[in-house]
């Protein structure tokens, strides 16, 4: 299974290259001039911490990169991002953002897709990635996207569809699961796939940390905008912690097995998360601001994500692996382990057992290297396309979450083909106004 899967993806890639050539000759010729030493014009979509980081890493990856547009939900963020980029001496002369290339609002990605960027750096909240990627590939743009790429099953399917279009058009999609671009892991995975630790029989991955920020009320924001500012706390926007954060480690497990799991079983809950005690800008205050002073329904402003999920993935060969994620004050654990019949590995740079090995080559910063690899692939005419893979890893995390939320076990096939889960409001309903709230999952929610 694993071998054929691998072969398939290789043949897919050569097919994509051929399709790319066709696309080049066709209508999108204007957008695919980013070959050789040409300038690559970059648009930044999402001006939070990760977006500002990603665009800098993109600029550092290649001297021919220029930033020409910036977009975000919030006008203030767009402007401050542009100003800070302009002031950065490191990128002097390479930040050329005109006033009419500043876009904000819930439809900022649509406006951005109409500009002349060759490459988009996507780092908004995960909920909107599918529609953003679709707009971008339709406009013939290459993509760097942060992980995860969706928060529900429908979103994963949209990313898979966008990824197919990118393939047909010869566009690159690289995703911010940077471990895939770290030399040590790439070398290690070759060995694992070559059978150096034997057949895989188990594995574990963890992302368990102290907690995250909570942003209180901010003057001038509608309730939905406030929610988007606090995106992490709402399952429909972030996908919950297992999707938003733990996907890195889950992606490593899928990498080891060369594909997603075939079955999901998970438990979990929200045992302590509250943002009302000792909090600057507590949830109750936010509630009062949006409800004429009443805090009757304040708990929904705490958000609805859980604080722990304990999941088991059963992979195609029957191996059962643990995914352990959550937040709790004063804790920290984030790594992976893979177990085979002939040895084990830390999934990073070491094999123990019959074929003991340690990576001794150069170590690179994956978050930089992913941009270097992306731009190289665009320039060489062999665009990387990680779209399907990251959609699968995102769906793996979402599958575990759904299993925990519902208390039900199910298969990958059911999840991918039959689940009707669709929790992100359609674009036409997204406008400054009332928030979109769902009750916190019970552990026995209806499976859809």
């Amino acid at each position, binding site marked *: 299974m694993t071998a054929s899967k691998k072969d398939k993806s290789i043949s897919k890639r050569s097919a994509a290259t051929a399709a790319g050539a066709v696309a080049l000759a066709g209508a999108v010729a204007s957008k695919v001039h980013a070959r050789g030493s040409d300038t690559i014009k970059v648009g930044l979509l999402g001006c939070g911490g990760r977006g500002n980081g990603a665009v800098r890493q993109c600029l550092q990856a290649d001297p021919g990169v220029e930033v020409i547009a910036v977009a975000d939900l919030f006008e203030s963020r767009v402007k401050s991002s542009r100003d800070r980029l302009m002031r950065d001496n490191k990128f002097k002369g390479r930040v050329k953002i005109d006033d009419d290339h500043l876009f904000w609002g819930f439809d900022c990605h649509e406006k951005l897709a109409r500009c002349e960027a060759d490459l988009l750096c996507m780092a908004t909240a995960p909920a909107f990635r599918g529609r953003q990627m679709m707009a971008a590939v339709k406009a013939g743009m290459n993509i760097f996207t942060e992980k995860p790429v969706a928060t529900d099953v429908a979103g994963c399917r949209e990313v898979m569809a966008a990824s197919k279009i990118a393939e047909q058009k010869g566009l690159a999609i690289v995703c911010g699961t940077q471990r895939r671009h770290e030399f040590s892991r790439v070398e290690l995975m070759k060995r694992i796939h070559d059978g150096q630790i034997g057949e895989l029989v*188990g594995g574990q991955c963890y992302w368990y940390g102290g907690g995250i920020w909570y942003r209180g009320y901010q003057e001038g924001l509608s309730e939905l905008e406030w929610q988007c500012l606090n995106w992490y706390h709402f399952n429909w926007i972030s996908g919950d912690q297992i999707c938003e954060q733990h996907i890195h480690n889950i992606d490593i497990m899928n990498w080891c097995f060369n594909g997603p799991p075939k079955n999901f079983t998970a438990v979990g809950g929200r045992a*302590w998360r509250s943002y009302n005690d000792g909090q600057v800008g507590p949830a109750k205050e936010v509630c009062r601001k949006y409800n004429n002073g009443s805090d009757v329904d304040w708990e929904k402003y705490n958000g609805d994500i859980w*604080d722990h999920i304990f999941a088991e993935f059963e992979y195609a060969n029957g191996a059962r692996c643990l995914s352990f994620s959550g*937040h709790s004050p004063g804790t920290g654990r984030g790594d992976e382990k893979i177990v085979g019949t002939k040895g084990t590995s830390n999934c990073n740079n070491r094999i123990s057992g019959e074929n003991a090995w340690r990576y001794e080559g150069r170590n690179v910063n994956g978050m930089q290297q992913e941009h270097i690899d992306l731009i190289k692939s665009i320039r060489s005419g062999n665009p990387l396309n990680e779209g399907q893979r990251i959609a699968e890893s995102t769906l793996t995390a979402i599958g575990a979450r759904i299993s925990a939320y519902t*208390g039900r076990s199910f298969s990958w096939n059911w999840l991918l083909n039959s689940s009707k889960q669709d929790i992100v409001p359609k674009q036409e309903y997204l406008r400054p106004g009332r928030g979109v709230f769902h009750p916190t999952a019970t552990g026995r929610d209806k499976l859809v």
Partner: protein
Amino acid sequence: MVQRQKLTRRELLKSSAVTAGALVLGGAAVPLAEARGSDTIRVGVVGCGGRGSGAARDCVKSSPGVRIVALADAFGDRLTSLKNEFKVRNNHCFVGLDAYKELMALDDVNLVILGTPPGFRPPQLAEAIRRGKNVFMEKPVAVCPAGIKMVIEASNKATEKGLAIVAGTQRRHEPKYVETMKRIHDGAIGEIVSAQCYWNQGGLWVDRAKTNWDNYKSGKWSDVEWQTRNWLFIKWLSGDHIVEQHVHNIDVINWAFNALPEQVHGLGGRQDRTGPQYGNIFDHFGVEFFYPDDVRTISMCRQIPGTTNRISERVAGTKGVSNCAGSIEGENPWRYEGPNPNPYVVEHADLIKSIRDGSPLNEGQRIAESTLCAIMGRESAYSRQQFNRSWFMSRCTLNLLPPDGLKLSDSKPVDPFAVPGKYQLPGLVQSKRRRG
């Protein structure tokens, strides 16, 4: 190298088991007088609820010459049915939280069945052994490290006195498990490198919890009466469901490894079963146990209505995989095809045979250890802390044993359910931390 270490450990275990067995045999021959040969086994049942009654019937069914002669329960109403069924004399029926002491003082009882809530087990076992009784006790056998120590001590005394102790982890007496384990220990699946166990089920005692709560709220029952009748949901009595129920599966994994986990890290919560009638226990746990050589295993348990059932175990080795219950796949495929007698009866037959043969089984230490693992899983999930077994046994000061002289009319507040980050694991020095 890993392999050699493991083999060594296994051999060590084997040889120490043999030695211990020899000691037991040598010691047992002297003091054990009662209940030998064809003598009647005269049983006293302590705890006459569902499990105690079931065990009493299975015990009688298991072997000839077994009579139920005495009963004890906290509540008179719980005792009636067995009293009528086995025609137990009035002066051999005892009621109250201390009734077990009166029963165990009877000279004409040579085996006691302990079927009371697990929180009462350590003092009751200690008393039984002190009084020279053989014991069948339900699992789990304690709910805290202090209780575990008490059980191990009593179990050692039982060995000295040549008394038998069998625990209600009936899989240990189920031929399909026994035969599978022999093969696993003989290396049929190679070295174990991964394992999982589950007790995921629907709701439990949903109506009963409500009725109990109504009786408590209306003032009909005291604190202690409500807690004792509603024991499943009360931590100091049941140990929470990971201990009360899932100990079965954890015990099977310990059995497969012939070793105990060295470390634990758990998660859990009370997500669906949130009403006050459900006391202070969780409704789900996910625990990772770390066995020697860093072999990591999954333990998962849940009691939430409408969720997917899964109650099983699985071990994966370098040469194959087994469900621990009659099937091995891989290099040495095998399927159990022998008889499947009712293990709830077999455990009593094994117990009584061992008494009559003069080579009493003593499962006290083993069930104490498996119970300990479940308790570690619970405390790790409550506190969200990862810790070692050696630390837990030597430093954790958690003591949930019932106070001496506890009366049904007493008031005893229920601890709040554990909230990770707030819950303090007794004995663990936690760094000052802020919620982020």
